[in-house]
């Protein structure tokens, strides 16, 4: 075993660092939807122009054609600079892009993939519905074939970034005669199509990062179907396993930085007793040390995961273990921060603020819900990793 990076990888890291130092955004991320869209796309475009977009994507689709290890290096340096998450571009880069790459036809690939990488477009994910959350396969948004179009009627919910998205990976029911997993179709929806109505939902953190989306006779060309009609479940599953695998690397690196920031903060700030630095409190000190140990183990698991993935290509159910561990730690660390700031927790903040511990704490509750709840991850681990009966 070794943790060595090759000379080439070390050089790559240096290039990343140099480039990031020169090109990283200087302004903080705006709070309004239009501002976020512009900011995230501009930053993606800058990365693309610098040759850093889609590092591990194949070159034929405009990517760097490099390995997951190089992708990891990029994320490590990226997060170390304290740069923002790729929030609005996340679905394009981590779900829709990879899915189109795996299951799309040539036309779909050549149209969509470069646009995602270049920062021309934002994607959103229209999977969840009011009656289909954890039980995603029970989704009911209906699509019927009319000539060379699908006509969609129904409703999605919790669609992140829907209000600033150009395209949507949309799951619709095209047949309800068989089992619920059959009869689902994965289709690309242009969010500007007439009949789509988007209503933002305010979250407990205060922002409106997700939306309800209503479809009223929305006409989508059949050529936008990825995979076959009624084969959407298997197409969707390739996306989800991506989300639970490689896509977490960046968040995990960022979480490690949060812990380090929190330790520094606890040294410099008076703790809940109003007298001593927070870190002088034994309980706080131990919880900080445990958080350090835990995020280190998360990183080690990520490395092991990358080694597995590089041998077998798809992340598989092991990704659920990472996602679960990550969600638990996010919540634990965010709650620790609240205990450290003490009564300063009465003052609201945003997770985008520097040291925005209160906003971060509120946000942390989403981590064990979005992308499949922690209970569902435990089911997956129990059944698919450990082989327990259903």
């Amino acid at each position: 075993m070794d943790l060595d990076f090759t000379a080439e990888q070390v050089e790559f890291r240096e290039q990343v660092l140099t480039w990031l130092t020169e090109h990283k955004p200087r302004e903080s991320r705006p709070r309004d939807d239009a501002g976020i869209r512009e900011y995230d796309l501009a930053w993606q475009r800058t990365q693309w122009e610098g040759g850093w977009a889609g590092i591990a994507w194949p070159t034929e689709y405009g990517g760097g054609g490099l390995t997951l290890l190089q992708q990891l290096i990029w994320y490590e340096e990226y997060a170390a600079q304290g740069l923002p998450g790729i929030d609005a571009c996340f679905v394009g880069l981590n779900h829709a892009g990879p899915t189109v790459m795996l299951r799309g036809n040539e036309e779909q690939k050549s149209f969509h993939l470069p646009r995602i990488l270049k920062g021309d477009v934002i994607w959103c994910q229209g999977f969840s519905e009011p009656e289909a959350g954890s039980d995603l396969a029970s989704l009911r948004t209906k699509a019927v074939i009319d000539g060379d179009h699908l006509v969609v009627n129904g409703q999605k919910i919790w669609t992140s970034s829907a209000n600033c998205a150009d395209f949507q990976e949309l799951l619709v029911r095209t047949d309800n005669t068989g089992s619920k997993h059959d009869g689902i179709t994965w289709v690309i929806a242009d969010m500007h199509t007439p009949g789509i109505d988007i209503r933002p939902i305010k979250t407990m953190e205060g922002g409106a990062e997700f939306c309800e989306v209503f479809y009223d006779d929305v006409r989508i060309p059949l050529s936008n179907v990825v995979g076959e009609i009624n084969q959407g479940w298997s197409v969707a599953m390739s996306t989800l396993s991506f989300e639970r695998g490689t896509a977490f690397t960046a968040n995990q690196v960022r979480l490690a930085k949060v812990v380090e920031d929190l330790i520094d903060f606890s040294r410099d700030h008076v703790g809940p007793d109003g007298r001593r630095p927070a870190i002088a409190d034994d309980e706080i000190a131990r919880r900080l040390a445990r958080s350090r140990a835990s995020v280190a183990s998360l990183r080690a698991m990520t490395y092991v995961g990358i080694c597995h993935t590089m041998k077998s290509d798809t992340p598989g159910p092991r990704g659920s273990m990472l996602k679960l561990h990550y969600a638990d730690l996010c919540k634990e660390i965010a709650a620790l921060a609240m205990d450290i700031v003490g009564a300063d927790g009465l003052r609201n903040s945003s997770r985008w603020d520097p040291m925005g511990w209160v906003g971060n704490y509120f946000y942390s509750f989403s981590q064990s819900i979005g992308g499949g709840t922690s209970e569902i991850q435990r089911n997956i681990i129990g059944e698919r990793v450990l082989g327990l009966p259903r």
Partner: protein
Amino acid sequence: MDLLPSEDQRDLIAAATDFLESRMPIEGIRARDGQPSAVDRDAWLEGAELGLLTLGLPEEYGGSGRLLDDEALLFATLAEHLATGPFLTSSLAARVAAQCGDLDLVGRISDGSVLVGLAELRGDGSIGPEGIKGTFDLIDCAGVSHVLLVTELGAAIVDLDEFPDVETLDSSDPGIRLATSTVTAATVRHWLPSGTDPIWLRATVLSAAGLAGLANAVTRLATEHAKLRVQFGRPIGVHQAIKHACADMAVASDAAMSQTLFAAVCVQSGRQDALFHALAAKTVASRAAIANAGATIQVHGGMGYTYEHNAHLYLKRAHVISHLFGEPTQVLADLLEQGAPQ
């Protein structure tokens, strides 16, 4: 970068597993309960012959010269099978003796004729090249001739005879033997400063490996039981209270093992943050082993609470190892003092 066991390493684990299952079955712990020593000396000699004590010892001293990640996998495997006897201290002592030039002792530890137990200072006292002083817990020192002491500054080998009035105590773990002795002045046979070879760091990583092995073993035990035990007409593993407990165990033991191997490689390659990662490994592995063992008892119901079942043996071993080479609270304090990892 590669953190997956190589084919060579998988062979090593398989060979150790074979040996432990056939020659050191867990049942032996109960069979020797009440006897002065927990060790089956014949099996010990065979284990020595197999090279279990000298895997990491440099080849020039007759060892296999394998790297710390190999040793971590070995000590995880030993713990998974609740191997009895002072494997860790004997193999670390061989390393100390080798570097102190005592080739005779190296040879006798390697062939299994000399066993080296562990002494842990409890409360005030001192351990250094000039001598040792204080009250010590003696762990697995029954029938041994030498004792290893490990501090952050260095490691000492002391003759057991130097410990006066050794009083045998009832050990919480039936798989080890415990005694105590108060030393006012004792001579140190060998002292190896950390600067020459960081024995404490190795001990920390290898005890983390043992804990990760325990965490792993009980996860398997609980999962197997959850598949087989039927209540209400179905295996109990269909219920989420049980399934999710097993899933949490799997995550905790995976995190513990991943971090331990990560730390082993860091120590091996002399990375600057090696200490950080070793302390982190000990922390996550202690918690994983103790929590998983507790959960495993619960998954087994009444049977899990019996002496006859193995679950409690894992729990008790987990507690023992978590206290070796640094109290958990001290490990946390040391960890917090480190700079950010690389």
